[in-house]
């Protein structure tokens, strides 16, 4: 008996559905051509005429049609990126049937609305859709998925015009969805690049999310997801994972998420996650933990961040090992107690100890918390002394003879060489 | 030409000058300022040059007070007591520096020849011996043909040949009508050259007059003994301020030896 939720089962269902659809209508499949000078100059007309399973080819040109409801399994294929223009108060296209495939279209301009979350392309309660190779430019919300399942969103270019958080929408917005595959998209300048709320069992792979006002990727109440090989650059915060469980984060790049309260990765109320082989560079705070538990951090590289890891209250069983901490202004800041979090066997560029028995581990423990970070948390104005000689002396004396920083926050077996 | 009136100067509690009145106007004469160590010779000269600021009294140069002025110094050549120069400048450069400060009119070539300095012109000043430095010092002092020449211990470190050159030079300058003021400890030099001596003791002018007058006052044939006589006697200056009675003109008062008090 194959469990319904297992990936294998999903794949079998998906493949059989596609085979079934394409095979079932193979004999009857017809291609409708839409172009400004064709017998069917309107997309709406073609949708009405087409039978389920037909293919509609949309040729280069400008189309001013909105609220296009696709209510049967169709394959819309743009040829030469035809431009579909939006208008105030309306969406451009709504997928209202299973097994719809949208490819090669250019969605242009959905004006923002204060009343409704208007999107260029909406999927409502449907399954087995493919949205691929499209361009979304200046659309309020680009792709909006609600109660959608088994969808592929792949290789789209999505560019917004977000200025403030309140007046902007998300690039890819998913709400109550399952089994999505979001891959190789470029999402820029929205509120959140990719927003997932109540989304489970989904893969987010190879996306490039940049210049988003809030988060590059945002999980809310979403479990059992994984994201890999994505790049998050210059966002308000790279990735925020909140109120979620079992998230697997691997081989992503968090780069230059830089600003006054900026994070590479923000973890809030998240449990049982794995964070592996990611690179965090030049973020104000590379990883911020708040109420995070049972998370393992391995083989990540954190370099040149303001704060590499900031641990706030309520964090338990966070295990950092085999990570590289390179040239961060502050490696670890701990607000509260160490509890049973652990930092063992990492490489620290600031470590100055020695290894007499040549086991690759330093013989004296490394204390990643500097006195100065403690001082700053007590009196924020003291940040004015950053990089002053006095602070260097202070940090040094604390290192030699710890009095203020938590005694248990140490790496007892720091690596001598970065692996 | 130079008038000093009621000049007082103290360094902390040490009262160095306690009311000096002195007028210098003879041209073509050498005046030697004498006195034991700490009697205020150098301080007097420095007051004249504006380097030390008097507590009281006034110095006039050609009728004008010199306080806070600097232009009048163009009329004065000065040889400081200790010859120390910036170590990394060359002799040639320091001569040029002075020329740039005081203007191009100069007779440096003549003096360089006189003191035999030409081999040293491109040497850094830090590498010169004391005597050679003093020669540079003399060259710098005499380079400008100013009407007034002030020399503070000009003979220090000089070899005999240079000393003879210096004496010749002084005699020549005197003959050219300059007013020359010298402090020195070499009595032979004073005896040989000075037309007039001013003897300072404990902040007062103890004696002013010619050498002959001094010898006469002291009943000594030998000048050096006359001077030594003054110094070994714990004498009070006749015109000391504490003295009762009308204040006599010190400069013209004859020297009367005081009886010993012990």
């Amino acid at each position, binding site marked *: 008996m194959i469990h319904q939720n297992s990936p294998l089962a999903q794949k079998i269902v998906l493949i059989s559905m596609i085979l079934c659809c394409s095979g079932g209508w193979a004999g009857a499949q017809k291609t409708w051509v839409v172009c400004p000078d064709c017998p069917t100059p309107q997309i709406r007309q073609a949708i009405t005429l087409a039978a389920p399973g037909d293919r509609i080819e949309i040729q280069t040109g400008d189309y001013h049609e909105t609220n296009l409801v696709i209510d049967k399994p169709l394959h819309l294929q743009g040829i030469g990126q035809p431009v579909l223009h939006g208008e105030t108060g309306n969406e451009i296209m709504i997928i209202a049937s299973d097994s719809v495939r949208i490819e090669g279209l250019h969605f242009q301009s959905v004006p923002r609305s204060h009343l409704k979350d208007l999107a260029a392309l909406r999927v409502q309660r449907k399954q087995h859709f493919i949205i691929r190779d499209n361009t979304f430019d200046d659309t309020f919300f680009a792709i909006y998925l609600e109660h959608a399942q088994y969808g592929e969103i792949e290789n789209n270019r999505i560019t917004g015009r977000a200025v403030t958080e309140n007046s902007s929408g998300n690039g890819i917005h998913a709400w109550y969805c399952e089994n999505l595959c979001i891959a190789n998209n470029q999402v820029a300048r929205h509120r959140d690049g990719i927003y997932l709320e109540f989304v489970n069992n989904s893969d987010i792979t190879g996306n490039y999310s940049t210049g988003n006002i809030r988060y590059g990727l945002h999980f809310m109440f979403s479990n059992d997801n994984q994201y890999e090989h994505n790049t998050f650059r210059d966002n308000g915060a790279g990735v925020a994972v909140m109120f979620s469980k079992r998230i697997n984060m691997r081989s992503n790049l968090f780069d230059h998420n*830089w*600003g*006054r*309260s*900026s994070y590479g990765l923000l973890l809030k109320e998240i449990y049982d996650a794995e964070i592996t082989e990611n690179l965090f560079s030049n973020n*104000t705070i590379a990883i911020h933990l708040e109420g995070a538990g049972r998370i393992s951090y391995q083989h990540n590289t954190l370099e040149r961040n*303001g*704060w590499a890891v900031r641990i706030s209250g309520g964090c338990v069983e966070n295990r950092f090992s085999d990570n590289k901490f390179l*040239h961060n*202004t502050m490696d670890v800041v701990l607000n509260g107690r160490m509890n049973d979090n652990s930092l063992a066997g990492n490489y620290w560029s600031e470590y100055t100890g020695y290894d007499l028995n040549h086991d690759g581990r330093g013989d004296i423990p490394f204390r990643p918390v500097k006195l100065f970070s403690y*001082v*700053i948390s*007590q*009196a*924020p*104005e*003291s*940040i*004015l*002394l*950053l*990089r*002053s*000689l*006095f*602070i*260097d002396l*202070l940090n040094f004396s604390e290192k030699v003879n710890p009095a203020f920083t938590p005694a248990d926050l140490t790496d007892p077996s720091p690596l001598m060489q970065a692996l | 030409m130079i008038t000093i009136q009621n000049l007082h*100067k103290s360094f902390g509690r040490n009262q160095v000058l306690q009311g000096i009145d002195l007028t210098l106007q003879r041209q073509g004469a050498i005046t030697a300022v004498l006195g034991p160590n700490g009697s205020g010779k150098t301080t007097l000269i*420095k007051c004249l*040059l*504006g*380097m*030390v*600021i008097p507590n009281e009294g006034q110095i006039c140069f050609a009728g004008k007070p010199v306080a*806070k002025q*600097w*232009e*009048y*110094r*163009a009329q*004065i050549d*000065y040889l*400081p007591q*200790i*010859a*120390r*120069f*910036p*170590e*990394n*400048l060359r002799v040639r*450069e*320091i001569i040029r*520096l002075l020329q*740039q*400060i*005081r203007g191009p009119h100069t007779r440096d070539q003549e003096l360089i020849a006189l003191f035999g300095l030409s081999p040293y012109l491109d040497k*850094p000043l830090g590498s010169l011996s004391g005597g050679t430095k003093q020669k540079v010092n003399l060259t*710098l002092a005499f380079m400008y043909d100013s009407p007034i020449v002030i020399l503070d211990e000009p003979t220090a470190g000089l070899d005999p040949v240079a000393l003879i050159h210096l004496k010749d030079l002084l005699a020549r300058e005197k003959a050219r009508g300059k007013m020359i003021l010298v402090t020195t400890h070499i009595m032979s030099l004073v005896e040989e050259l000075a037309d007039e001596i001013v003897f300072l003791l404990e902040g007062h002018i103890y004696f002013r007059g010619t050498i002959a007058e001094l010898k006469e006052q002291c009943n000594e044939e030998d000048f050096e003994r006359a001077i030594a006589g003054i110094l070994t006697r714990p004498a009070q200056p006749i015109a000391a301020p504490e003295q009762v009675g009308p204040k006599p003109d010190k400069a013209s008062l004859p020297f009367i030896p005081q009886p010993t008090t012990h």
Partner: protein
Amino acid sequence: MFKIMQYSFFDLMRSRWSYSYFGFFFLFTSALLWLSGDIAKVVISLLNVILILCPLIATMFGVMYYYNSREFTELLLAQPVKRIAIFWGQFLGLGFSLSLSLLLGIGIPFLAYGLLASMEIWHFSILLFNGVVLSFIFAGLSFLIALRYENRIRGFGLAILVWLFFAVLYDGFFLLLVMHFREYPLEKVALAATLLNPIDLSRILVLLQLDVSALMGYTGAVLQRFFGSGLGSILTLTSLVVWTTLPLLAIRWVAERKDF
């Protein structure tokens, strides 16, 4: 004044101290550049060195130079020159020679490394500007101290103390103040305190340029807004100008009342 400045400058530029000072910066910067290979990081590393070393060396040189040229100064005083022209001239000569050693010592490796091709040239200029300003400020302060105290040991001691105060102790007091009154909003006080110490001011100016301000959280944002504003720039410049001119005026005051 300019003649004297020129001669002081040449005299100092030929001293072995100048060569060692230049040599230190040259070797240090070259080593940093070729070992780390990252100009932005080198600028940060140099920041600490410049902020500490420029004032220290300027202080030491200032006191030493004054005492060493004491007799020559007397010779100059007997010349028809204004008193203050001599001291300002010597001060300027000192300041320029220190600055030249600094500029060449750091500039040559950077140019050789291809600074012009990188985007860091602005940060680099700000850094050097601060180094030069600090050199002048502390040369002035040390000259003033040497002028005021004939006793060399006392003068040296006091000059080092002044350096120590601005480089280290001031920050200590500042920290004590901030920690003690942490319940109160202290941003304005903190800013004022920064303006009063040229070393702190230079450090903040460079750090703000280096984009580290984002690290500084809320206070950092307040800071950046302040230093970026018109008023902030004016106050900053005023503070630096005051810090450079105040010792000069004090030098004049002391020099005109001093016996040599």
